[in-house]
């Protein structure tokens, strides 16, 4: 009986048993849908607010329009002025209106006498969706205030530039792709999570579970090379890990199809080629993650302890990657040599449509595969000594 046959016998049993475990299978295959679903919801929200602001212009409810016809005329150049709801504050609080401008009665009189004329802008700062309307209203009011002030200075013979020491000019360098990348920063995070959650049930069941059920001893008494035994268990977990990864990627691929990105000014590199590349890039992660999970679960005291350990293990590589994704600063080069982190960087940059060197990809793949081999060697050695059986 060859090594390969031993491996195959155990591997096919682990996979068959994994597919029969409906509960963990559903958990493992449900999680990967979560990331794409979340991204879809976020995109819907953002696209709604952006579209309103960009295409239709902002609806600007104004109360007391009769008190300031000039101001209202100015506002109407930049937004659609509509009648205000009866109770402006309550309307904004409830979210019926995104913003309301209230012009009090004394506005005209104060303006004529040269004193600051009161205007109330009612907003809810905590509502992300209302932000474009808020900004539009503020800009219009500020612009009118500035324009009126300058007219007053000119009337008094003073050059308006005197009160404008700063010439502020805003230049927004974000491209549509990089704006969208803010949202897509969660993609690599969910890829890593999928790699871990997918293989976790099998990794635990095949080690800590097998010891708890007391079936490991019969397995160790069988004439199998222990390296074949442990590698088969890793590969078994890897199958489910790769499945979850594929599922997540397909899910992310479907998101832009369901919500055409161009309509909201985003163009995201989530085409099939990018997905296939991400999958290939994910395979070394699958190997390393399954290896780590099998090793750690084999050393856990029992089933529950293994679950706790592996849940923590999953956070270690996924959180720094998420931080890197959100910070758009250029990361140091060594990041690519860190397993899981490098892959997340590469996926993030592919999503942003940035160029990658072959070297960066090669370093990342080589680092992760090397780590996976080291973990497998370590596991084969501890299994050869019978460690998972007797001292977890």
């Amino acid at each position, binding site marked *: *009986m060859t090594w390969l*046959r*031993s491996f195959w*016998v*155990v591997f096919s*049993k682990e996979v068959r*048993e994994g597919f*029969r*475990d409906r509960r963990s299978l559903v958990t493992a295959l449900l999680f990967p849908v979560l990331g794409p679903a979340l991204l879809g919801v976020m995109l819907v929200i953002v696209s709604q607010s952006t579209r309103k602001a960009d295409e239709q212009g902002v609806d600007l409810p104004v109360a007391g329009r009769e008190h300031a016809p000039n101001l209202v005329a100015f506002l109407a150049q930049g937004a659609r002025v509509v009648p205000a709801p009866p109770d402006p504050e309550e309307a904004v609080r409830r979210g019926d209106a995104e913003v309301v401008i209230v012009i009090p009665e004394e506005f005209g009189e104060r303006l004529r006498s040269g004193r600051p004329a009161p205007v109330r802008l009612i907003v809810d700062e905590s509502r992300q969706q209302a932000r474009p309307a808020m900004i539009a209203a503020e800009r219009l009011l500020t612009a009118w205030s500035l324009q009126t002030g300058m007219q007053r200075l000119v009337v008094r013979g003073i050059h308006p530039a005197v009160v404008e020491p700063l010439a502020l000019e805003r230049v927004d360098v974000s491209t549509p792709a990089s704006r969208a990348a803010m949202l897509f920063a969660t993609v690599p995070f969910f890829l890593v999570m999928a790699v871990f959650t997918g293989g976790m049930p099998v990794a635990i069941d095949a080690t800590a579970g*097998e010891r708890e*059920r*007391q*079936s*490991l*001893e*019969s397995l*160790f*008494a*069988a*004439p*199998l*090379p222990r390296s074949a035994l442990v590698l088969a268990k890793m590969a078994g977990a890897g199958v489910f890990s790769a499945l979850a990864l594929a599922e997540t990627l397909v899910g992310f691929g479907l998101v832009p199809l369901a919500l055409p990105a161009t309509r909201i000014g985003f163009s995201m590199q989530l085409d099939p080629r990018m997905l296939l590349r991400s999958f290939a890039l994910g395979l070394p992660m699958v190997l390393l993650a399954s290896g780590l999970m099998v090793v750690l679960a084999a050393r856990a005291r029992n089933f529950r302890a293994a679950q706790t350990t592996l849940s923590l293990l999953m956070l270690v590589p996924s959180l720094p990657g998420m931080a890197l994704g959100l910070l758009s600063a250029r990361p140091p080069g060594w990041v690519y040599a860190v397993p899981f982190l490098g892959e997340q960087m590469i996926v993030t940059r592919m999503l942003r449509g940035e160029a990658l060197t072959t070297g960066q990809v090669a370093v990342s793949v080589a680092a992760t595969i090397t780590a996976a081999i080291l973990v497998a060697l370590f596991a084969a050695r501890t299994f050869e*000594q*019978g460690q998972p*059986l*007797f001292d977890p």
Partner: protein
Amino acid sequence: MIVLEHVRKSFGPVEALRGVSFAVPDAHITGLLGPNGAGKTTALRIIYGVLRPDRGRALVDGVDLAAHRLEAQRRLGVLPHAQGLYARLTAREHVLYFGEMHGLSGERLRRRADELVRLLQMEEFADRCAEGYSQGQRVKVALARALVHDPRNVVLDEPTNGLDVAATRQVRSLLKQLREEGRCILFSSHVMQEVSALCDRVVVIARGQVVAEGTPDDLRRLTGRESLEDAFVAAIGSEEGLA
């Protein structure tokens, strides 16, 4: 034929085996008798290759486990102390899985599985998943997977533990049948009745050492006691841990 030669094994400060030697001949049922904690399970685990001795060696049909573990394990059928099953595999799949691990396959393996299902009267539950099996059913599956490759040597750690009378009798008659086929059978027990009912030879082990060895008659003669029970107690030097 199973041989242990001067086997020593410690777990940290605890000396489980302190130079154990005995031979288990073919066509005999040999009982490894001793109180709880005497080192029975440790000795058996060394024989079936899941533990390695600190000193000494274990041989199965002359094959040294330390040097050729796989070759030695192929010659062994093992019923470990713990008979855990896979909840999502059927009894038949357990037998097939272990058959494949022993290098069997195809039609030959399927026929062997059918044969064991019949021999151990497992027809009723053979194709149901192991979740919810009774203790008796579990032991039958464990026995079937231990015997699937038709081993010359059979090692059983307390095989009748937790079984009812009917199942115990079944296991005993199976062991006798295996003996008639000329196999080498070693089983451990702390139940004297069982040993006296089954064994051709007895190895008495206490505190990690062999304290007596021979046929039940030898033991009685050696200790000068009338009943086997008294002979065991005399050999072990205490009644503690026996049943």
